[in-house]
């Protein structure tokens, strides 16, 4: 058990180190950022708090509204620990599905079971290791808060920071155990998608319940609801012991169910098996002519993933349209906000609001999509597929170009179809969006995605094993750059170089031609560089 625990910790060490570092720097940046932008007098901070509340309304679909954002604790609880909850949930999802199914495919689970370790002990060791790692990473966030507050010349209770870390760790452990259980039910192929869909549903039940009353009776199901009940950093706020206990109890229950499910299923198989029928063996090759057409065959190979991404992004786009309607309408009815809208919003309020929240979120989704595709390229390298591909009469440059073309077409399918869905839903909600600009905004997501794709292509050609981590760090860094650049008075050229800035606000302000040109330039240079690196590197060595 101890050996397995240590091995599990070792297997997850990069995740612990990476998310610990992210938690530390995100929290530190937000804490230090508060002192830069909130002012020093009581009245300045009150005004800052009011503007934050208005701003927060735009993000209510993702993060709970802030409490006391005029204080450093309230601000960091909202900006840092709200975002960290999502990041830690994603970490838990990836880590648990990898522990259950990825390790099975790599033979690690068989090796462990072959050494006489029981399945429940294996599950317990993995949960214990992740719990240790997530608490360490969460404590790094707490430490960063204390460091940041000290840099502002103030002091806060260290107990509050520890309590915030405990709440975050409890959420992560709960998400991990849930994923561990859910991943037992399906095949290895669909484990992460299935568990991810359930976690996303639980997240949306909680976050959308802030807007849609009919979801309120169901939010007790969501671990994110219990996390939000704690606000230890907010002055007067506390760690909700009962809610945290529920998270930990749910984690233990889910881990016990995962252990039982693991005992009942075969290694490598799903607990819930779909009926199959016997059929005689076939020695024919696939008759589909799609395999014969370059690029099309790769799209066909990825058809399920493309379908899921397209449906997911389109559905979220439609949800954001509905949210825009339900959030903006009440705001427009508040006379006190009229000066704010007239001062800061150009043109139609609905359009500006929707452009900001949806296309801001869509950029994150498409960056995530690009990372997922680049991860596939890196995997092709490590699992020998690339070696087999280039053992056929195909040049390495063509491999790079085909990958870029496939990514372009995939991004085009997702962005255009989701754009159509958004347009239809907006019309149904009586929000009149400029069709041409909507098309431009949707299509501009293609070069945006390609920027990440080509940066990833260079990394995948050079250092495939570290590609996903580095590209993820690049995405986070460029996103944070846009968010915090003005606060920390970073050089304008640096902030402007971020893909999130280059994309601009095409729906409300039109396409930024310079930004588009720079993005296309990055894409061309990136493809050229990755082709060059691919041409010169060793494959399979």
């Amino acid at each position, binding site marked *: 058990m101890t050996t397995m625990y240590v091995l599990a910790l070792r297997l997850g060490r990069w995740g612990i180190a990476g998310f610990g570092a992210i938690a530390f720097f995100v929290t530190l940046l937000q804490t230090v950022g508060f002192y830069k932008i909130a002012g020093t007098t009581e009245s300045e901070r009150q005004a800052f708090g009011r503007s934050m509340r208005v701003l927060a309304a735009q993000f209510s679909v993702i993060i709970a509204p802030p409490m006391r954002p005029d204080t450093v604790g309230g601000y960091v609880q909202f900006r840092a620990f709200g975002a960290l909850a999502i990041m830690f949930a994603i970490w838990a999802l990836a880590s648990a599905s990898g522990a259950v199914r990825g390790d099975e495919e790599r033979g690690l689970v068989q090796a462990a079971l072959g050494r006489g370790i029981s399945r429940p002990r294996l599950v317990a060791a993995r949960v214990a290791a992740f719990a240790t790692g997530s608490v360490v990473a969460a404590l790094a966030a707490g430490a960063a808060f204390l460091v940041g507050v000290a840099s502002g010349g103030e002091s806060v209770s260290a107990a509050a920071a520890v309590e915030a870390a405990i709440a975050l760790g409890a959420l992560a452990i709960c998400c991990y155990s849930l994923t561990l259980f859910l991943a037992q039910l399906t095949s*290895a192929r669909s484990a992460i998608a299935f568990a991810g869909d359930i976690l996303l549903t639980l997240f949306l039940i909680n976050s959308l319940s802030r807007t849609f009353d009919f979801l309120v009776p169901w939010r007790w199901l969501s671990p994110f609801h219990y996390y939000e009940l704690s606000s230890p950093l907010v002055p007067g706020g506390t760690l909700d012991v009962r809610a945290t206990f529920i998270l930990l109890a749910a984690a233990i229950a889910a881990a016990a169910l995962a252990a039982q499910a693991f005992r009942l299923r075969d290694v490598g198989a799903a607990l819930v098996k779909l009926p199959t029928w016997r059929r005689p063996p076939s020695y024919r090759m696939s008759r589909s002519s799609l395999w014969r057409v370059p690029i099309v065959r790769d799209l066909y190979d990825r058809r399920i993933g493309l379908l899921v991404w397209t449906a997911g992004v389109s559905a979220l786009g439609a949800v954001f349209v509905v949210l825009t309607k339900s959030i903006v309408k009440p705001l427009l009815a508040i006379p006190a906000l009229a000066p704010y809208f007239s001062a800061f919003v150009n043109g139609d309020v609905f359009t500006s609001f929707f452009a900001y929240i949806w296309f801001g979120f869509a950029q994150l989704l498409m960056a995530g999509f690009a990372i997922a595709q680049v991860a596939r390229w890196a995997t092709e390298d490590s699992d020998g597929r690339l070696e087999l591909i280039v053992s056929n009469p195909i040049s390495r440059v063509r491999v790079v170009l085909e990958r870029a073309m496939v990514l372009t077409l995939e991004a085009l399918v997702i962005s255009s179809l989701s754009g159509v869905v958004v347009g239809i839903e907006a019309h149904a909600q009586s929000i009149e969006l400029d069709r041409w600009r909507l098309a431009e905004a949707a299509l501009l997501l293609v070069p945006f995605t390609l920027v990440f794709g080509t940066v990833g292509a260079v990394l995948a050609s050079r250092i495939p094993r570290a590609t996903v981590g580095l590209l993820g760090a690049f995405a986070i860094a460029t996103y944070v750059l846009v968010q915090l650049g003005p606060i920390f008075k970073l050089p304008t050229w640096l902030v402007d170089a971020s893909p999130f800035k280059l994309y601009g606000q095409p729906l409300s302000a039109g396409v930024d031609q310079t930004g588009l040109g720079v993005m296309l330039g990055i894409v061309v240079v990136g493809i050229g560089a990755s082709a060059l690196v691919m041409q010169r590197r060793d494959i399979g060595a």
Partner: protein
Amino acid sequence: MTVAAIQTARLSKNYGLGRGLFELDLHVQAQEMFGFVGPNGASKTTTIRCLMGLVRPTSGSAHVFGLDCVRDYVAVSQKVGHVPGDMAQFGSLRGSEVVAYFGARQGRADFQYARSIAERFNLDLSRRYREYSTGNKQKLGIVLAFMSRPPLLILDEPTSGLDPLNQQTFYTLLAEARQGGATIFLSSHVLAEVERTCDRVGIIRAGHLVRVFDLDEMQRIRLHHVELELGSDSDPPIDAIRAAAGVEDVKVNGRIITCTVSGPFEPLLDGLRGAKVIRLISREPTLEELFLEYYGEAPTAITTTR
């Protein structure tokens, strides 16, 4: 003068710390069946990757049918069918889809032939790749390499994971390819395998080509560890055994005799004539034992028999 199927000149790939391939000079004629034998880690796979243009040599050159393996790697791959040492992963793709995918990439695949190979191996192409056993994955790799009837087959331990029956099927397939005019470069760590299929055998160890044998020479150096148990009703013919040609290291422990036999078994069997043999076990030496027997620990001399 015909162009060599494979020609390397001082081919090296240095990974540092003494690991890699060093100054390999190899010449494989067209339509030859060449065995490339060495223990694990001897750089057999590195050699193959250099030939396929997957790895850039540190120095030296490699040519396939006169084409430079680095510069003309696309043209080289048009002439080569390759079974990699570790079969790639194709997740949820069906075997039939993998064949269609790579058949289209090769551009010259004979799908009827691919089907016939799959039938001979009883490889169900309708199943998903992740459902395949290790042996079935290897069979799929063989189908992919052979289906375009390439003039050169470069096979990296192709029988690993195959059961004896399927190994026989594979040897038959090799013989047919040979009859069809193909050149075969077969990497293996099993001496007996290359001995039964190849015309010449190159032995590599620690990145150095130790020696290239033809088949006769190979059989002369073949060494067997033999253990005999004789019946109690006759005296062991120790002197006759010691005097038998090729028999060495004779040790007697009661009625159990151990010795090594190089070359044919007839002299030993002649020496045993009249004795009652209860048990006879013959074991081939491992490659490491063979190297220790013949070359000591650090074989670097290169001798080529052509």
